């Protein structure tokens, strides 16, 4: 759509800008402020330059939690996106079951995040949880509070449980908007089921899938509450993701300088990845 040039459109945007700026810029300035200063208590601050940034970037602790974060995000994207597409493809297109499916599937999305953590905690605990009992019943020694591998599996499983539905709903919505004529044309052209997926469904899903992946990337990269309630970042530090580590440093140890520096680096990483996505998406749109 070719848009009209109209500078007065700014007036429409002002309320949004003010509200978001109040929430974003002032706290961001505070963070920037802390990140370049050193304090010895008593509200006395000294210029520290980029020292905290250097310290964070060089710290093994930061490397470790960043690595864990990347591993976690990659894993859940690799599981949730294909699984979500598969479930959406198998869902009925019409009939009374559609509503039932959609409502039940959307349910996990609207449960407060700490409840999700708590729910999975009592679900997976080896002594009182259904899942824990079942796995141990199969003869596998499983205790997510003590075994790093079990903790990881449980955390990933919880995230899959929590968020795959978002991918399903988006994909399903995308699938429903493909006109019947495409499927009919494919049948006439003798296309196989795979060809229908590859040349009709996937291209038409391009946009919703981009949104789904973007949302899943952002949310999983910021994940805090669910793993914090489930495992508390443990055993040891094995499930301490970036946010958990950050809160530990900032509120637990009150190391404001390093926490602020880490916040900014963290934010930059998210921004960078999203920017790459955003430009790729826009370029794709420009082509078609």
């Amino acid at each position, binding site marked *: 759509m070719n848009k009209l040039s109209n500078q007065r459109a700014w007036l429409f945007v002002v309320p949004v800008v003010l509200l978001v700026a109040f929430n974003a810029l002032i706290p961001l300035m505070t963070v920037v402020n802390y990140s370049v200063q050193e304090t010895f208590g008593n509200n006395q601050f000294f210029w520290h330059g980029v020292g905290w940034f250097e310290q964070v970037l060089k710290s093994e602790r930061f490397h470790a939690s960043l690595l864990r974060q990347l591993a976690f995000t990659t894993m859940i994207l690799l599981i949730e996106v294909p699984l979500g597409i598969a479930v959406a493809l198998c869902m009925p297109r019409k009939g009374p079951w559609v509503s039932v499916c959609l409502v039940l599937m959307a349910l996990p999305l609207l449960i407060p995040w700490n409840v999700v953590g708590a729910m999975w905690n009592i679900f997976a605990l080896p002594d009182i949880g259904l899942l824990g009992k079942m796995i141990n019943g199969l003869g596998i020694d499983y205790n997510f509070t003590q075994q790093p591998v079990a903790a990881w599996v449980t955390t990933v499983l919880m995230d899959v449980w929590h968020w795959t539905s978002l991918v399903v709903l988006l994909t399903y919505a995308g699938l429903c908007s493909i006109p019947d004529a495409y499927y009919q044309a494919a049948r006439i052209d003798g296309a196989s089921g795979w060809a229908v997926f590859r040349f009709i469904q996937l*291209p038409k899903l391009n946009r919703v899938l981009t949104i789904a992946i973007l949302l899943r990337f952002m949310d999983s990269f910021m994940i805090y509450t669910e793993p914090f309630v489930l495992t508390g970042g443990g055993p040891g530090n094995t499930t301490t993701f970036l946010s958990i580590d950050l809160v530990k440093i900032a509120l637990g140890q009150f190391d404001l300088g390093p926490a602020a520096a880490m916040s900014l680096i963290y934010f930059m990483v998210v921004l960078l990845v999203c920017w790459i996505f955003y430009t790729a998406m826009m370029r794709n749109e420009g082509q*078609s």
Partner: protein
Amino acid sequence: MAKITLEGIRHSYPSDGREQIWALEEISQVWEDGGAYALLGPSGCGKTTLLNIISGLLKPTRGNILFNTDDVTETTTSARQIAQVFQFPVVYDTMTVFDNLAFPLKNRGLPKTEIIPRVHEIAAMLDLTESLDRRASGLTADGKQKISLGRGLVRSDVNAILFDEPLTVIDPHLKWQLRSKLKQLHQQVGTTMIYVTHDQTEALTFADKVVVMFEGKVVQVGTPQELFEMPRHTFVGHFIGSPGMNVLPCNTDENGVRCLGVSLGLIEKQPGKGNQLEVGVRPEFVFFDELGIPVRVNKVDDLGRYQVVEVEADGQILKMVVPESESIPSENPCISFDLDFTKLYRDGWMVDSEETA
């Protein structure tokens, strides 16, 4: 290529209600090999349903479909070797024009050496050669519709090409161009073509034979001329021609049919049962005649090449087409019907009639 025979096809879509509603009621129809047919009718008369049954996208509730002598009722769409062009252009967005055209052939496992020349041949026919390397999604609506058509033509073994209102989304000035292209292609490749439309001009210019459908039934099959001169159903009279046929209530007495308060000099050959008897006469076959039925002229529309005159007699409104050169009588106008083209209809269907001596 094949002759397509429909034997007693009925279809109803699944519905929640107890009553079964037939979208198609009992259709038996033969489509000769190599014919250019138009399937004409108003929206919702079952044209698309019938088309989808022929291509196998729908399985009829009752009845059989034969290609030549083979029963294909249970055969899948792709095995029927049918091509179909839809109302809205369907192209595979991510592929180039070349790949779009080659898609049906690749799916059927043809070797590259056969695909490439074939695609170029079809592209040349459709004037698509220059855009072969472009992404199909970037083309205009008529370009896309050419691609869907091309995907049908590219298979040398298609039994028939079906068109489902293919020109709906095309700009008017390109419509005409594409329609003559279709006609030309039909002469070039000689495949059976069935063209669904609700536009009589499209149907009459494209087809050798027009199949008129109404409320799930085929009401008449004929050449454009037959449809014009001998509408077998009052619906055909209404639907084809502009303005449509005049249909007037009438009754009979010992002298034959009386209409507009006068005896027409027409009798029903075999007086049949049924409730409603009507007289149908096209505006083209009504003329001013000093000895005819007195009428009042309501209005005159001058359309340039001819005039459409609306007259009233005995409380009935009639339309008549009067040549541009002829003047409208100003005093005591009277009209007559050309009895050769005045037909009797009982319950909507034409009945045999003859002129009384």
